[in-house]
């Protein structure tokens, strides 16, 4: 029934505090890069999907219209897909469906967010409303606050330590320092991480991802068309999507992102593989605790052993499974609507062997894991080199 779908073009723009560029200008950089990567122009693209997380960041009722206008993609189809910080993966899912359902053969999936036009307290409010605006935001909950609650529960249940969290930050900054498109491409020490200022107890500055501007784009094609492009296709083998309760307190196990567990199960099943067959993964490390939960909830290590797993350097290149060797959200940055698409770009480039000093040798199967809010929606996608 389903048609096979490949990624045939991929690019990420420079992430950072991009005071030099508007939302649409950031998008243009990424799309131009993806088109050049695929060796095509927009005339060859049939349809488009745009991921943007927040109207309030972009001062737009319909941010996707800015994009198809600025690219002069009209009159072809485009609209916005949103799943908070998982918007990019939801757009990838819709792009995949567009090809798989036969509506189009070549589809552009764009993710872009411009987060620094607003003040930091306002950005903190916008992200805080990623929780329940009625029943949680009145208690002053911020985005780091939700993950702090996950961290506290994880620590109580499994003995995870602040050092374990800091080790994730050190790894991701180590790899981010090798990624010229990263927001903060610099190494940090364990001491720096542990001594940084408190954001939401017990999460400190270096446990948190950044407020970042940026964009990323991929071009999808049907199996019939995938050979027509410049680069080797990377196939989307399995997509999983799952949801969880709005309120963090309502979850049976606060230390587990159940939507990750369910989405991963679906993705593995559709791809017909198990977690130990993954060669390289990008997981949603919006906070260091989130990466530790991801190790466990994706099945890379048993539940509760995420702390020792990073301590043993199992997620460095050369370990059991290299994770976030692009720097992750932590060091590469987290322009929320772009993040899921940027993960797909990284895995595409890893499977093609284009990642230089941070290339995972002989990577053939990759995984992206993208979380919306504090787990309300999760997308897991599995990719394989042709």
């Amino acid at each position, binding site marked *: 029934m389903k048609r096979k779908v490949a990624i045939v073009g991929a690019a990420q723009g420079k992430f950072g505090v991009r005071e030099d560029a508007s939302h649409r200008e950031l998008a243009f950089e990424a799309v131009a890069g993806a088109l050049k990567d695929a060796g095509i122009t927009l005339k060859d693209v049939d349809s488009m999907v745009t991921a943007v997380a927040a109207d309030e960041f972009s001062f737009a009722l319909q941010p996707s219209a800015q994009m198809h206008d600025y690219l002069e993609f009209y009159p072809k189809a485009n609209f916005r897909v949103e799943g908070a910080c998982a918007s990019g993966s939801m757009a990838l899912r819709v792009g995949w469906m567009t090809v798989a359902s036969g509506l189009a053969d070549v589809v552009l999936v764009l993710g872009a967010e411009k987060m620094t036009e607003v003040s930091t307290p306002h950005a903190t*409010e916008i*992200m805080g409303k990623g929780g329940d605006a009625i029943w949680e935001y009145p208690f002053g909950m911020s985005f*780091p606050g939700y993950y702090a609650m996950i961290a506290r*529960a994880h620590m109580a249940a499994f003995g995870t330590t602040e050092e374990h969290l800091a080790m994730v930050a050190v790894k991701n900054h180590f790899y981010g320092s090798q990624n010229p498109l990263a927001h903060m491409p610099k190494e940090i020490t364990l001491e720096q991480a542990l001594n940084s200022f408190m954001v939401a107890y017990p999460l400190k500055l270096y446990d948190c991802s950044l407020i970042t501007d940026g964009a990323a784009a991929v071009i999808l094609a049907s199996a019939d068309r995938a050979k027509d492009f410049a680069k080797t296709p990377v196939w989307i083998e399995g997509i999983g999507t799952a949801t969880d309760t709005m309120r963090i307190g309502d979850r049976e196990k606060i230390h587990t992102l159940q939507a990750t567990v369910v989405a991963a199960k679906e993705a593995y099943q559709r791809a017909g593989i198990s977690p130990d067959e993954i060669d390289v993964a990008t997981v949603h490390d919006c906070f260091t605790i989130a990466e530790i939960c991801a190790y466990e909830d994706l099945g890379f290590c048993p539940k509760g052993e995420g702390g020792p797993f990073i301590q043993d350097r199992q997620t460095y290149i050369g370990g059991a499974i290299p994770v976030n060797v692009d720097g992750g959200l932590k060091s590469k940055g987290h322009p929320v609507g772009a993040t899921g698409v940027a993960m797909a770009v990284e895995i595409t480039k890893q499977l093609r062997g284009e990642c230089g000093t941070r290339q995972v040798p002989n990577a053939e199967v990759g995984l992206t894991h993208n979380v919306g809010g504090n787990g309300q929606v999760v997308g897991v996608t599995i990719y394989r080199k042709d």
Partner: protein
Amino acid sequence: MEFKNFSLFIKHTKVGKTFAEALESGKVFGTQCEKCGRTFFPPRPECPDCLEEEMAYVEIPTKGTLLTFTAIFVPPAHYGISPPKMPFARVTQTPCPVGVVEVGNGLRVMGWIPDVDLKDLKVGDPFEVEARALRNGQLTIVLKPAGGNVPK
């Protein structure tokens, strides 16, 4: 008082008035489905299992255990402080911890944890849930260590 005294943004909800008035009178209300008996917190006017609007307000249990907590040092717009007007001065806010307590029946309640040092909080500790009307007109929920002497 209005529901917005509790919710900050939202005025309109089927359960707001009753919930706010209960908070004002010192009670935390949930709802219970009159068909299947299931109880809900936060309160809601319909049962997602029965798809019916036959619900009664009930006081939720107040005794439970602390599931998790945090304290937000970098708060969102509504709870931040302004930069100091005095040159070279520094302003520091000590945040009030926030936690989630499980009170039985699967009900979880978020609330402020005032007057307790962050370092003294432990997941699993016995806690009590209490409605509270603040002097500034805000209606809210606080969580107190069980048996503790927390001044009002």
